[in-house]
């Protein structure tokens, strides 16, 4: 219990630090941030517009007042409004976040479903045919960036073979079948990097654990091989795998931005990229804050899961 409290407290502190950094980012820019945000292609913006934006972003207030206003806003769920169309940032996020989460969840589940069995098998049969092929595939898959896989799959499956739609989105309630069909390709593409990393980690963890003395003991006392695998090998091999899963989530969340763009999936990526292009600062800050918090939450959950699996972590 103590461990859980300590981890939750650390995560809360980290979220506060992330919020502060995101707040401070605009003040770390050398020069007048309002002027820099407005200057497109080297043309100097006119003074009146700059003054208006400074006022809009509250940059004329003392720094501590700005900071306090920002934190109060975040706590009240007020992330400001878009500079482009005055739309509340939080409304945009609550509309689109579930779609991004769906993609992440589908990708993660897919990666786990493929990588854990494959990694276990490869680890138990080291240097066998399957191990060699799967390890080669994993190395290759790791080397292709997500947007390359995505674009090439669109070229192959949608453009050339006409097997799949090139991308898009239909609400699940409207057409469940079509929804899942459209989900399939982006989910596979998101899953690929995670699956390769998890495969490698599972393989080496299983390889390591299966040579330990306690596994030999379990075998020697006549346990069924399946039980040895499940309760002695996998239970101990899972802890490093979970750590890697948590660590890789950062890359996965970043990859989601690219994958949503490639497949026109209307998640957080669309407003984020539009906002970065038009330098819509409040929108970018809102989305970065929400996704980074999500990242920290996922890491918290994987840590708690590890502790649930492994009493040594709880004691540490």
């Amino acid at each position, binding site marked *: 219990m103590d461990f859980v409290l300590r981890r939750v407290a650390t995560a809360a502190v980290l979220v506060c630090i992330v919020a502060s950094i995101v707040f401070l980012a605009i003040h770390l820019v050398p020069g007048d941030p309002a002027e820099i945000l407005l200057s497109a292609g080297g043309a100097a913006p006119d003074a009146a517009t700059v003054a208006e934006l400074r006022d809009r972003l509250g940059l004329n207030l003392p720094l501590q007042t700005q900071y306090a206003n920002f934190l109060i806003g975040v706590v009240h769920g007020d992330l400001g409004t878009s500079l482009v169309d005055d739309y509340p940032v939080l409304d945009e996020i609550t509309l689109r976040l579930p779609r991004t989460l769906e993609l992440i969840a589908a990708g993660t589940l897919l990666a786990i479903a493929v990588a854990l069995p494959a990694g276990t098998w490869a680890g138990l049969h080291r240097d066998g045919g399957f191990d060699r092929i799967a390890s080669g595939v994993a190395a290759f898959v790791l*080397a292709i960036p997500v947007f*390359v896989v995505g674009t090439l799959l669109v070229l192959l499956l949608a453009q050339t073979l006409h097997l799949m739609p090139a991308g898009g989105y239909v609400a699940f309630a409207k057409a469940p079948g079509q929804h899942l069909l459209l989900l399939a390709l982006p989910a596979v593409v998101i899953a690929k990097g995670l699956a390769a990393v998890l495969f490698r980690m599972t393989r080496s963890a299983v390889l390591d654990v299966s040579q330990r003395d306690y596994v030999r003991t379990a075998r020697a006392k006549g346990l069924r091989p399946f039980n040895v695998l499940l309760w002695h090998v996998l239970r101990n091999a899972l802890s490093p795998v979970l750590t890697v899963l948590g660590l890789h989530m950062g890359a996965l969340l970043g*990859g989601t931005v690219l994958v949503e763009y490639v497949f026109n999936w209307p998640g957080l990526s669309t407003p984020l990229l539009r906002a970065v292009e038009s*330098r819509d600062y409040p929108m970018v*800050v809102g989305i970065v804050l929400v996704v*980074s918090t999500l*990242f920290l939450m996922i890491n918290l959950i994987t840590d708690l899961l590890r502790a649930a699996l492994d009493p040594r972590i709880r004691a540490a």
Partner: protein
Amino acid sequence: MRRLALPALLVAAIVLLALAAPLLGLTDPVRQDVARRLASPSATNLLGRDEFGRDVLSRLIWGARTSLVVAFASATIACLLGTLLGLCAAWFRGIGGILALGSTDIILCFPPVLLALLVVTLLGPGAFTLILVLSVLFVPGFARVTYGEVLLVRALDYVEAARAMGSSTPRILLRTVLPNVAGPILVQLSLAVAAAIVLESGLSFLGLGVVPPSPSWGLMIRGARTTLEQAPLLLVWPCAALTLTILAMNLLCDALRDVADPRSAAALFSKRS
């Protein structure tokens, strides 16, 4: 050592090709010739022309230059900063060093692409922004690795011997400690270069990295998407170049790790004998 040869050769070949780009007598990679847009391969344009009539082969080779300059510059800056930080934090072990080291960890709280996009919003896209943000992203990795290694090395006899001989602290750090922790830092450097190539191409693909018309693989893939139906091959070339480069870098990382990690080297040795 033999495992190191092939990936090292591949990476060296790619780097040499990129370095030699101005000497190869290629067509200007940014010169447009709209009349001959999407022209098929010919003797003068071995890979054809893109959607603005620019020579694809030339853009491919000059694109390697862009990617590698950004990747090596950011990885080197991050390596220098991170190594210095980790070295000082582990050697002097003051509260300041620990705090500095801890504060770099905060960078790891952000998904890398999102932190990059935040900086691009503030500074505008471009190669300079990319190098800046990528170096910041990789500092914690170098600092952590160096810190851990130096903590192990600083208590060893040969460091004590150097101190007893009256060497100055900078001399011990640079001549005795640093060479003995260089292996893992080199591995980290190759990891950072590979990661930087992936991030640079991804951001350029989104139109938020290298600014057009500079040749960049990410931008080429972005451009080829619009002409997917007429000229699918335009998409294939930069994808292949990017994947091959990253694959070579990754193989080099793995091989370096095996060589640098004494445990796996020992395992290899005992297996052979």
